[in-house]
């Protein structure tokens, strides 16, 4: 009797459970259909649309900060070196003789670049997050004054000219250059630069300043993108030349060669339009140096060798005699030494064609590269003592500064700035992210295409699905946590698979990243906030942006017609991540695409991640709805006038 009742009860529970499950599924499917307006989705997980919270994402949590050196400046007497520690909000003064930190100065806003005046009295520090330049009394290590510049100031250069002291500041987020008078700080001009200006140098003798922009500017689809070396008058800020570094990016450094009138800019030569059938022979990218001669002639020469690569050249300094240039390769933990007399000799005898093809000739570097100095992890900035006897290498992910005897290339010691975070998976992951050792012949790192985890603005042709497919736009890794699946077709369910064997097969052409390091890498990636997150979060919306926000969330057109739910912006780009993480068709299938269903990208930091769409065909946000909109499939926008479109774009830039 008891057992029969038990069986009946069990059956009732089972059937009830099944019924509830079935009813739940039916309700769920109809709920999805009702709120998405789509019938092709069926049942999807609740968390595609619900239970997303920015606060719960890894990148929203406070991460440990390290004494990662960014900019450096050496005092005129060579006794002190000043190092900006952007993560720590500090500038420290280290004693060169004892190789130890002497004094620390707190500067809020991520101090990044450092320049020192001719007398050694004043330091000038760029604050990357507060968009300021700070003047600091170098003798007393105290802040003197500050001035607002463009957004994201990084590189800074100082020169004393006949008309007075000048500072040239590269504003990496607002893509412009602040030309400042030094005492007191005042902005003289703010001309436009290329995309993400990053480094600045002044040739006081020649009356010219140089600013290198590290990203290439997307032009028309399938055309070669170039980065810019901006030449300007440091007195007036007037633009003298905008030299295009053909097919180059990550040009994060610039230096002036005294006597020769050259400027040197390290770069990555990208070959993104060529199908990635291989990586050997620099097929995807290689490292080089752009030499700009006094007459403006540009020649790109390789820093890589036929079978040896030195990834992510990020900084360059030239000794006072102009004999040698030192280039830090952040991905390879090497400083490359170039003999400029040899380079000049080669340039002198090279014909036009040889110069034009030089960067593609991997056997050429041996003509002028005289040494490769090993460093600790991630050398990113360089400085020389006033006489050029000592080379200082900022080993960013080792939290140290290597001191090298410049003549013999022998290490003299290391200034330890803080712990290097061996016990922190995020820090370890950053080391994986920035290292080229996982790719064939150590050709490139994750950072080579994702500077600071963001985009390089390029589209690549992977051959995984055969030759001849469309290019794929490089997507930002900033703010990527919680936006799975990965890839434009949503093929990879998570970052671990995205960055694991599939990545090794398609791009690295080596064994996959070992499991422990892969885990660190994905932990690091998930800790990366979206581009411009802090700046956008702390800035109220302007009236135009507010109008744009209303358009984004509009359910009716200006004329009062209802917008189908499936084509309301916020249905697919659902806050807070501005994605529902589902595939959608927005009418963008290209001639070689196998599908018209593409992953709905999140929109956080979208204003800085051009170009757009899966193949990067739209170079601006406007083009999404002016050129590449088809039958209102990518949101209903045909009712908008130009005011409204501009407002919508302004709002999107705030995400």
């Amino acid at each position, binding site marked *: 009797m008891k057992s029969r009742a038990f069986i009946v009860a069990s059956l009732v529970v089972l059937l009830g459970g099944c019924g509830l499950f079935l009813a739940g599924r039916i309700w769920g499917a109809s709920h999805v259909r009702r709120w998405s307006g789509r019938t092709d989705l069926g049942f999807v997980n609740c968390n595609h649309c619900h239970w997303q919270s920015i606060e719960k994402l890894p990148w929203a949590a406070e991460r440990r900060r390290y004494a990662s050196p960014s900019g450096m400046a050496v005092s005129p007497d060579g006794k002190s070196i000043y190092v900006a520690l952007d993560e720590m909000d500090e500038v420290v003064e280290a004693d060169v003789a004892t190789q130890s930190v002497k004094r620390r100065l707190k500067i809020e806003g991520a101090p990044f670049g450092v320049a020192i005046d001719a007398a050694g009295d004043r330091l000038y520090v760029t604050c990357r997050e507060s968009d300021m330049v700070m003047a600091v009394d170098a003798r007393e290590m105290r802040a003197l004054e500050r001035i607002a510049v463009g957004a994201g100031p990084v590189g800074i250069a100082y020169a004393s000219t006949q008309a007075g002291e000048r500072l040239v500041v590269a504003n990496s987020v607002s893509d412009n250059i602040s030309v400042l008078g030094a005492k007191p700080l005042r902005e003289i001009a703010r001309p436009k630069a290329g995309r993400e200006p990053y480094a600045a140098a002044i040739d006081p003798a020649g009356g010219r300043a140089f600013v290198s922009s590290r990203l290439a500017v997307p032009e028309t689809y*399938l055309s*070669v993108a170039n980065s810019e070396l901006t030449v300007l008058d440091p007195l007036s800020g007037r633009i003298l030349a905008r030299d295009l570094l053909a*097919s180059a990016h990550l040009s994060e450094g610039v230096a002036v060669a005294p006597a020769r009138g050259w400027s040197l800019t390290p770069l990555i*030569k*990208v*070959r*993104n*339009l*060529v*199908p990635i*059938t*291989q990586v*050997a*022979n*620099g*097929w995807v990218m*290689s490292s080089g140096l752009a030499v700009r001669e006094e007459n403006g002639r540009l020649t790109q020469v390789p820093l890589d*060798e*036929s*079978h*040896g690569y030195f990834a992510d050249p990020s900084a360059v300094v030239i000794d006072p005699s102009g004999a040698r240039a030192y280039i830090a390769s952040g991905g390879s933990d090497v400083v490359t030494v170039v003999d400029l007399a040899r380079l000049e000799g080669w340039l002198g005898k090279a014909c036009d*064609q040889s110069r034009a*093809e030089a*960067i*593609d*000739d*991997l*056997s*050429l*570097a*041996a003509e002028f590269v005289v040494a490769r100095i090993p460093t600790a992890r991630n050398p990113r900035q360089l400085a020389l003592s006033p006489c050029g006897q000592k080379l200082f290498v900022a080993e960013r992910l080792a939290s140290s500064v290597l001191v090298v005897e410049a003549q013999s290339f022998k290490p003299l010691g290391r200034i330890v700035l803080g712990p290097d975070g061996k016990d922190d998976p995020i820090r370890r992951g950053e080391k994986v992210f920035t290292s080229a050792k996982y790719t*064939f*012949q150590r050709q490139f790192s994750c950072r080579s295409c994702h500077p600071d985890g963001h985009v390089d603005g390029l589209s690549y*042709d992977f*051959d995984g699905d*055969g*030759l*001849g497919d469309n290019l794929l736009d490089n997507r930002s890794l900033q703010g990527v946590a919680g936006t799975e699946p990965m890839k434009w077709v949503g093929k990879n369910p998570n970052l671990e698979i995205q960055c694991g*064997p599939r990545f*090794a*097969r*398609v791009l*690295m*052409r*080596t*064994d*996959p990243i070992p499991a422990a390091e892969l885990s660190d890498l994905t932990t690091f990636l998930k800790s990366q906030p979206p581009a411009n997150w802090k700046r956008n979060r702390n800035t109220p919306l302007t009236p135009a942006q507010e109008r744009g926000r209303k358009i984004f969330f509009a359910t009716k057109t200006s004329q009062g017609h209802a917008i189908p739910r499936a084509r309301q912006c916020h249905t697919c780009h659902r806050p807070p991540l501005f994605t529902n993480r589902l595939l959608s068709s927005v009418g963008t299938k290209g001639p070689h695409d196998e599908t018209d269903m593409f992953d709905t990208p999140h929109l956080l930091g979208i204003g800085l991640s051009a170009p757009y769409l899966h193949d990067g065909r739209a170079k601006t946000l406007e083009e999404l709805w002016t050129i590449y909109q088809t039958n209102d499939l990518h949101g209903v926008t045909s009712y908008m006038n130009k005011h409204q479109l501009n407002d919508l774009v302004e709002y999107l830039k705030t995400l």
Partner: protein
Amino acid sequence: MIARHQQERGLGGGFPILAIVLVLIATGFFFGCKPVIPEGSLVLTQVPKSAPEGGAGLDRLYPTGSRVILVLDNGKTRVLSKGLAAAGAPAISPNGARVFFSGRDGSGEWQIYEADLAGRAPRLVTAIKGGAANPATIDENKIVFSSPAPGRSERSEPSAIYLQQVGASPQRLTFGNSSALEPTVLGDGRILFVSAWARSAQDDCQFGLFTINSDGTELTPFALDGDGPRFVRKPREIGFGRIAFHSAYSEDARAWRTEQIHVARPFKSRAPLQPNMEGCDSVEAGQRGAVLACCEGRVVEFQPGSFEVRERFDDPDWREIEAVALVPRAMPMGHLSTMVSGKKTGTILCLDANLTKSTNKALSTKLKAEKVRILAGSREEPRRLGEVNLHPDGSFMAEVPADTPIGFEAVDAEGRVVRRLAPSIWVRPGENRACVGCHEPYNRSPRNARPMAVTKPAKRLEGTVESIAQK
């Protein structure tokens, strides 16, 4: 209670037994399973001084009586090729624990053996028809070698490079019409080997160095293109960015010179390894950056660029011709294959068939090709798979049979062949192979431009050629 009882019993009664077992395991691990070989010991190939000259191929290099021995740091030696008629070409696994070598038993066939470092008889690793020679290690368990072993039989087919996981079947990696010989594994994971250039009949006796990935993809010329003595053997990566090798103008030459190239510019850096360095039979990477060489029948060591040569070993009764240090080295980089199993074709993309390394631009322009004829099969009697028109930018793309020697004829508007490559390259199944040009300059990266050929599907040229793998 029961668990506690068992626990107490286990601790009380089983502990001594467990301890003994652990000690035995530890002892076995340290002393039984793996013999302790001091780091820096040498593995040598010795040839009897009285050995008769003659023969061909391996028989000539390693005449009867040749043996592979282990020389411990205390000077004691162990014969590793016990029971074999001849042996040579030792290779050490990256962890420095395993030794493979070529050996010939009484049957007269050369195969690959693994040495027992404790001095017992070696273990047969390969049993491939035609024999196997010149092993090199990719990782602890994978070797590459060439087969058939040169010199033993009527050479009906050229030697190829094979890869074999120890205990598994060999997989063929090369499919050219010229022999692929003497493989060695570079730090970046590629297999470097010696083969003849095959652009024309004159190249028959012009040897160069080539590389492939560990799955046979991406065949690439590496160095040596008519810039010195034409015969080449035993290339070895010796550190400091250098590859050493031996060369001679005649295959029968008594004294081979030892040369080097810099990997930074391999086609432009050929030079003697040391001044007046002749009479050496082998060069290998030694310890702490030193070079280990066998010269004039003894083992010596020197630092690159230094004239100071230190003798490491010399047995007056034997002539030492090969020496490798039994030391761990960095594991070569791995390679995740891009091959597609089950596919029988691969794709060739040429970015510009009119890009050549000719410095005579006028001549290059004059010899402008309009289409490319794709050949397959033997070098002497190749079959035409078909023709592909060049796009205005000189690019073309074709799908061709995999694992088959493929050649090209660039044809101008009048139908004249302006450039030719006899069938000598291959693609692996599913491989997408691209080249910058046609006889293009070496070590050249592609120009960043979208090749027009990729805007349309590759022309399928299957032909009727039976692939070598199918044979």
